[in-house]
């Protein structure tokens, strides 16, 4: 029988998704369902002086208008509102809690009606008057008010002195704009209330148990009072790690009205949720003429809200990548009258590594070194922050394989030296790096005597392919065809899982499956050996394997008992095992994924129009569980990286503190015409230290480095170094 792990297995949920059988949070039906529509603030800061819902309430079909002054009780302490991924410092946003306006687009009322259109219309009839207060939303004008965040990265040596004395220096600011999430699925919650008042909360989220615990705290409910499910998620990319406000509003209305309620946000309203914060990244590199580094400093200054300190690791990545005796990192935040930022694919790294890798390219130019050669000169076999070796690090191989596939050796290093007709051709490269984390996850496997298994876990599949890899690992471990594996995910009553994020779910869930499957194997081995005249008599339990629906002796498949026979003799209809994954405590090694990204751009010399005609991404991320969904995931990251480089930017008018492109007509992401050839290479990276399967996770690594590779290619094509992203054509016109 074939093994599924490591193969290009098609998505087990693919058919359900393309046929519409897969239901998303806003699609679940309920008897007597009511629909809520959110009224948002139109100022960034102040108080609600008057909120008059009388006209709205007179609209036929409107059931109620919930506001801070008219709502069921909400928790009055921050502990209740802090979900498992809330920033440590701060007081989480509480929708409809009081009259304070903290950001533009803040929900201030929920109009509930018999249908969505009526609620939406009535929302225009809610009259609001504000006591306005002075506000600030501009990172650059408020830069001086930045406060420092404690970061784990210790300074090494004396970076300032080393920089001052370096033979070759490069220092620059790279400005990454605020970017908003635009997953295909809108944020939505359908709360289905049963006769006894219990709530089933269908929510778009990356963590049902996180939302469950949060709702229990916010509404002072017992765990059994509500259940949170989210079987399918149409993309989330970090935006669904924390509970979003629509889930609070939907539950609030369901409790107040004792009805089932659905709240779906509009695309425009989703610009009031979290986002990748605008960040000014200051990178300074000092080097010897041969390209070895003397000093690295990286200082990030980013946006956060006034009520929470959100920050991620933008600055520490050079510790992993580039050997330098001296280093200094700092991260600062500027509090503004905006909503709290949130994670967005490779949070911290996507921005910080972009700056670092542009800076390395600029240093390579200053040193007259090939960009790969410079990176190899500084290549670090140890994570310098803790002075640890890696469980595995095939980044050298990424450079080599990527360069070969791309044809890097044919690159003329001089800017503006390569052209094709009216277009300048530019080749750029960059390094990518991310973490390989693993978290506690439990899985339950129920094996029935007909050789089918149900594998269940509270983890979400946010579109990444968790259903499929769980099925693959279970099929291999249980020796069953994948068609016999039924995976159940994203129900808060299932075995524990954290939010799906950080690229940790593949490794974490896979090893929970292995653990539960191992218990099943032992049980089956016991049953099989207990059969009279068992062909497995005398075989030690460790030598018993599960293969082809049978329990067999390793290396001698003729000595086998079918699962059905073993269970019949044992008088068992089902075997149920639940197991929490276990990873050996090992602080002796750093765990990271890496990539080398190569990009070709063609830039119309006169008009500045940029086309990204080729990207090669060579990724080293341990064992790839599924080369088909894995390749798609990396391609998706590359496409998003194209967007970061050339398109994405949330534009705010700071006079109003309002986002002025809160829709996907004007907030540009790449369209098909912007995406050309993307070549994904998975570099072989055996890793028997990180975990049993050697899995690292690839959710984030695909985007890291892509924007820098493109920016570096634009420089190579045009001789113009654009340090303010996105690189729009006006920045290339003289």
């Amino acid at each position: 029988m074939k093994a599924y792990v490591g193969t290009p297995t098609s998505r087990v949920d693919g058919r359900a998704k393309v046929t519409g059988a897969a239901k998303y949070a806003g699609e679940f039906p309920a008897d007597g369902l009511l629909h809520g529509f959110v009224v948002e603030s139109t100022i960034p800061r102040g108080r609600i002086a008057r909120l008059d819902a009388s006209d709205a309430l007179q609209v036929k079909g409107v059931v109620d208008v919930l506001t801070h002054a008219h709502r069921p009780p909400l928790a009055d302490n921050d502990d209740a509102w802090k979900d498992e991924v809330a920033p440590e410092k701060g007081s989480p946003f509480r929708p409809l809690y009081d009259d304070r306006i903290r950001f533009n687009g803040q929900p201030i009322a929920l109009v509930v009606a018999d249908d969505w259109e009526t609620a939406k219309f009535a929302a225009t009839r809610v009259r609001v008057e504000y006591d306005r207060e002075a506000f600030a939303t501009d990172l650059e004008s408020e830069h001086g008010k930045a406060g420092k965040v404690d970061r784990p990265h210790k300074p090494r040596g004396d970076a300032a002195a080393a920089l001052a004395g370096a033979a070759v220096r490069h220092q620059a600011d790279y400005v990454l704009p605020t970017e908003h999430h635009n997953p295909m699925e809108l944020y939505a919650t359908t709360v289905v209330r049963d006769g006894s008042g219990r709530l089933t909360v269908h929510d778009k989220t990356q963590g049902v148990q996180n939302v469950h615990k949060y709702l229990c705290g916010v509404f002072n409910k017992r765990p059994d009072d509500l259940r949170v499910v989210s079987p399918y998620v149409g993309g989330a990319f970090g935006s669904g790690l924390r509970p979003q406000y629509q889930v609070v509003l939907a539950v609030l209305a369901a409790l107040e009205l004792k009805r089932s309620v659905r709240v779906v946000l509009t695309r425009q309203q989703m610009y009031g949720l979290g986002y990748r914060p605008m960040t000014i990244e200051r990178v300074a590199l000092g080097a010897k003429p041969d390209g070895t580094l003397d000093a690295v400093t990286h200082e990030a200054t980013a946006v956060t809200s006034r009520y929470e300190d959100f920050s991620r690791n933008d600055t520490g990545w050079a510790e992993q990548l580039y050997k330098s005796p001296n280093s200094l990192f700092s991260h600062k935040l500027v509090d503004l009258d905006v909503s709290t930022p949130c994670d967005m694919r490779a949070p911290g790294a996507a921005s910080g590594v972009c700056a670092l890798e542009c800076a390395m390219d600029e240093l390579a130019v200053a040193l007259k070194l090939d960009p790969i050669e410079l990176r190899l000169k500084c290549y670090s076999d140890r994570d310098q922050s803790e002075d640890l070796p890696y469980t595995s690090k095939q980044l050298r191989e990424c450079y080599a394989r990527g360069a070969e596939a791309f044809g890097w050796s044919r690159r003329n290093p001089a800017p503006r030296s390569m052209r094709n007709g009216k277009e300048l051709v530019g080749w750029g490269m960059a390094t990518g790096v991310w973490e390989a984390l693993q978290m506690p996850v439990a899985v339950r496997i129920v094996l029935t005597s007909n050789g089918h298994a149900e594998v269940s876990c509270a983890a979400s599949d946010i579109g990444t392919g968790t259903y499929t890899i769980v099925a693959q690992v279970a099929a291999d471990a249980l020796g069953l065809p994948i068609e016999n594996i039924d995976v159940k995910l994203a129900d808060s009553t299932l075995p524990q899982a954290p939010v799906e994020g950080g690229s940790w779910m593949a490794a974490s869930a896979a090893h929970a499956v292995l653990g539960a499957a191992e218990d099943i194997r032992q049980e089956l081995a016991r049953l099989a050996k207990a059969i009279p005249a068992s062909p497995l008599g005398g075989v030690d339990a460790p030598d018993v394997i599960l293969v082809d629906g049978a329990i067999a002796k390793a290396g001698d498949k003729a000595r086998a008992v079918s699962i059905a026979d073993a269970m019949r003799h044992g008088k068992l209809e089902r075997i149920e095992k639940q197991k929490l994954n276990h990873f050996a405590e090992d602080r002796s090694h750093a765990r990271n994924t890496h990539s080398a990204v190569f990009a070709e751009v063609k830039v119309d010399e006169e008009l500045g129009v940029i086309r990204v005609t080729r990207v090669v991404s060579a990724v080293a991320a341990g064992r790839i569980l599924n080369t088909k969904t894995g390749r798609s995931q990396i391609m998706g990251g590359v496409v998003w990286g194209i967007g970061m480089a050339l398109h994405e930017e949330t534009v705010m008018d700071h006079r109003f503190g309002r986002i002025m492109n809160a829709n996907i007509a004007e907030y540009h992401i790449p369209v098909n015409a912007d995406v050309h050839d993307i070549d994904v290479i998975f570099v072989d990276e055996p890793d028997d230290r990180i975990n049993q399967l050697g899995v690292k996770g690839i959710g984030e690594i695909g985007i890291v480095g892509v924007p820098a590779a493109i920016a570096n290619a634009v420089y190579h094509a045009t001789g113009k170094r654009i340090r303010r992203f996105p690189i729009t054509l006006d920045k290339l016109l003289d």
Partner: protein
Amino acid sequence: MNNFQYSRATDVADAIRLLAADPGAKLIAGGTNLIDLMKENVERPSRLIDISRLPLRDIEETADGGLRIGALVPNSDLAYHPLVEQRYPLLAAAILAGASAQLRNMASVGGNLMQRTRCAYFYDTATPCNKREPGSGCSAIDGLNRNHAILGTSASCIATNPSDMSVALVALGALVHIAGPSGQRTIALTDFHRLPEDKPHVDTNLGTGEIIAAVELPKHGFARNYSYLKIRDRLSYAFALVSVAAALELDGNAISEARLALGGVAHKPWRSLEAEAALRGRAATSDHFSRAADLLLHGATARAHNRFKIELARRAIARTLIQAASATPQSQAHKKIA
């Protein structure tokens, strides 16, 4: 979105009657722009008069060799009509440069002429905008104006007209046939859209109660030497930063007739007879193209964020004229600029 009445017009006269009966009424055909604006509460019609079933879907040849295009012809039908492809490929190219296939299938010719600006302040009811709310002020003049007009602006509005199709139609010298309470009239498309002046809330010279019946193309289609070049922030599905429609009649290398219009730079498709006159009788050389660009951009003024448009337009005009003169029109399918 507000509540509204819905009426279906039985014929053009009925549509005119319905319009006259309800000053807050709006006509709806494909609805690709109006519905969006209603969702944003920018348009709040008291009544939608559905004209989508009126018999204005024909494309027919006129007696003098031109083409009469019914106001309800879908944009995609027009772009792929054999007579348009053969005789007016500039128009086909401009249409295909705009929107997406799905939108072009729904959008009508008349609706395309009536589409409203994409100015972000016009769309955001929480900000002042003279076009949306006369007298409230223009937020763009001192605000985010990277996408805004550089020609024909006024102290009360710097919005642009977003249509691609109109730019080609203006270059081709199209006429608009209008039906109204006092009968039929015909005006040049160049006179159809207005400059903002002190009434930016009025986009066109369509009178109260009037309806677009058809667009007429004159015989001369410039099928050999033409190009439509649209420069935008991504390679498809974005509004123009600058677009250029160029059409030439060449006698050897001498220009006997020239048409030139810009999109994305003004409140209306921008055409300059002086620029065209400067090309007529001259050789198709880059010097003359530059001179035409200068004339077309005469008087261009920039605000804080749209200065690049002037130089971008200058270069785009020159490139489009080269494409037209060399009979290598810009492909709308392949995004590499010829």
